[in-house]
């Protein structure tokens, strides 16, 4: 992985240049946020559910080893093969081994962010294994060689016309198709033969249940059910933080998930897997990939509570206006800003700064992750590690010194006013001045409050002091 810091500001600025994309993206995601609000208002116990979801996750994370072992034992009893992967590389090797044993060459998979995180496709394809995404959005991104733009709606950054062009290139359909249904049909036609001939199926998993040794997959397209049921071998890749202790906990999370994500009461399909079907084989790969390290980080461990609903992205005014690709990572938006640096602090050092820290994310998050406070904490950690630009560091050092010396500060502030009055416009508005690029500067004033106070009040207040003394 390259260590070059992601240029979020620049990518976002480019995204904003195209009006149709920018407007659609903002409106579509804002619509999801509003539908979520409607669902919330229909549930008086909303806040109670959030509190409970958060507590269950905190409890589970605090007892993660115990629950993981409980899950493993129960899953084995159900006839599931359980594998442990320390990182992405180990995960990918395990997948290749399982497939090798069956001489399998075609992996059909439903959406799972974690396989993107493990860069599984990049590992398997050179080894002669074809990987086919069956989730429509994920498939579009795969064909376009892009990371998902969003955890729930991976191709949300694309307009119908973009998809029509991509399908025309790979499926030979009409590049001018305007109807999204027609495009979905084209995808179905193209995917069906692959689905039918695929020899291994792969899913992610939204929740792992320790007490039953089972796991739950929530989708809206039913593609996870095809991926898992058509082929004989089903591999499920599961992040270790997806655990909940009991089946009844699902009642809390399933009620929150789709309401927070899309503003629908529940996903179209909620599939509970407990073990292989007759004659079939089921594998579960429990992936760590940095999670246990994160669990040991005092400020950031609670990001592991995340259930990947995407609500924080939908509500984020910065994400809506910059698009998922600008984050340069599998996880974008507010949740990306706090977990991406745990994978690579240098590369993703810019993301905690791609935020106004407005706090909307933390307040929609169904598991009450204090996202915006973690963004604030990341800034500190990164500044201390010197993972922020040198110029910014120097400016802040200077500002800190100046603001600590009232006299010097006075001289400089009275200077600002003079500068605003006398400097020609082109000096203030050149392209090196980021404030002035899309905005006017504040108007100059005749005097500062400080000097007004000195002239109008100081004499009277010292008089008062003398009188009282």
């Amino acid at each position: 992985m390259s260590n070059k810091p992601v240029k979020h500001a620049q990518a976002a600025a480019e995204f904003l240049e195209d009006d149709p994309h920018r407007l659609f993206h903002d409106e579509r995601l804002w619509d999801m946020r509003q539908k979520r609000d409607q669902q919330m208002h229909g549930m008086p116990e909303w806040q109670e559910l959030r509190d409970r979801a958060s507590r269950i996750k905190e409890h589970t994370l605090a007892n993660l080893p115990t629950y993981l072992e409980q899950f493993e034992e129960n899953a084995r009893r159900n006839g599931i093969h359980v594998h442990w992967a320390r990182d992405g590389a180990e995960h990918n090797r395990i997948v290749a081994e399982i497939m090798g044993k069956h001489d399998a060459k075609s992996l059909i998979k439903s959406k799972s962010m974690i396989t993107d995180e493990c860069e599984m496709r990049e590992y398997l394809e050179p080894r002669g294994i074809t990987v086919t995404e069956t989730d429509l959005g994920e498939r579009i991104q795969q064909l376009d060689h892009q990371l998902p733009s969003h955890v729930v709606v991976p191709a949300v950054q694309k307009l119908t016309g973009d998809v029509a062009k991509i399908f025309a290139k790979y499926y030979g359909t009409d590049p001018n198709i305007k109807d999204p249904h027609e495009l979905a049909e084209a995808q179905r036609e193209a995917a069906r033969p692959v689905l039918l001939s695929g020899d291994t199926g792969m899913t992610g998993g939204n929740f792992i249940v320790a007490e039953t040794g089972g796991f739950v997959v929530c989708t809206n397209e039913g593609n996870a059910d095809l991926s898992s049921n058509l082929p004989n071998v089903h591999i499920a890749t599961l992040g270790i933080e997806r655990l909940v202790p009991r089946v009844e906990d699902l009642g809390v999370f399933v009620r929150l998930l789709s309401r927070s994500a899309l503003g629908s009461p529940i996903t179209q399909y909620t599939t509970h897997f407990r073990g292989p079907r007759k004659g079939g084989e089921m594998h579960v790969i429990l992936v760590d990939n940095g999670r246990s390290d994160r669990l040991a980080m005092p400020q950031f461990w609670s990001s592991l509570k995340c259930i990947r609903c995407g609500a924080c992205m939908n509500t984020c005014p910065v994400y809506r206006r910059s698009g998922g690709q600008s984050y340069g990572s599998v996880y974008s938006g507010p949740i990306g800003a706090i977990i991406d640096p745990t994978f690579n602090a240098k590369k993703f050092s810019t993301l905690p700064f791609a935020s106004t820290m407005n706090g909307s994310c933390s307040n929609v998050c169904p598991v009450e992750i204090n996202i915006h406070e973690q963004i604030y904490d990341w800034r500190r950690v990164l500044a201390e590690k010197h993972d922020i630009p040198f110029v910014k560091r120097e400016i802040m050092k200077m500002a800190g010194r100046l603001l600590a010396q009232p006299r010097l500060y006075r001289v400089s502030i009275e200077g600002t006013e003079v500068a605003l009055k006398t400097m020609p416009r082109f000096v203030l508005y050149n392209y090196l001045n980021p404030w002035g690029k899309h905005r006017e500067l504040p108007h100059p004033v005749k005097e500062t409050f400080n000097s007004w106070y000195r002239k109008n009040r100081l004499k009277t207040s010292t008089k008062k002091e003398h009188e009282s003394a």
Partner: protein
Amino acid sequence: MKIGLFIPCYIDAFYPKTGIATLELLEKLGQDVDYPMDQTCCGQPMANSGCNKDARETEELFVRNFSKYDVIVAPSGSCVHHIRDNFDAIEQTDAVKHIRQNTYELVEFIHDILKVREFPWAEFPHKVGLHNSCGTLRALRTASMSERNEPFFSKPMDLLSAVKGIEFAKPKRPDECCGFGGTYSVTEEAVSARMGLDKVTDHHNAGAEYIVSADTSCMMHQQGCAERNGVPIKFIHIAEILNGARA
């Protein structure tokens, strides 16, 4: 009760009117207000950039200036949020704790501490769009937020409702951040300015003549966006309206 008035740097330099209105308003409400001349800033710009250590001396100066007061009042939600929730570059002595527990944003001070609801001198015959900064909305909690399932409340609205002739516009996304975000406004200027323009357009489309807010920094940014793009809307701090400004 002796009040120390904190006038943040950008109000001091660019919006002295707001500082004057705050002072006069508190005096009209019978308060004993003092403005320490050697004040500069609360340390927020450095702390929000991650450079908390660089905020140390500024925070120390703030303590020297303000520890002698019973309460500290500032017409700026974001600065009060910093002082109350993040003022930790320095040792947490009793003086520091006293300051952190007794610093108020102007609206909450009038609403919760003075419990004043009448401003007989105030009249503002205009349609206004109220902008709650994210600091006041989600940190100081001076109003209910749309993200939560909670009954409606709004301290700034409670105060403004007592002003004769005032009318409120209803923007579509009242709680959306305007994109200022301190240094964010320059590090990500394109997104920041886009958010600002969207914000002022929303208020303008809702029929607002003025945007009124308890945070000058947001308005400085919004005004810049409105002027550059020719959105005809004016800006005024809530202190000025409550103090009796007519326009």
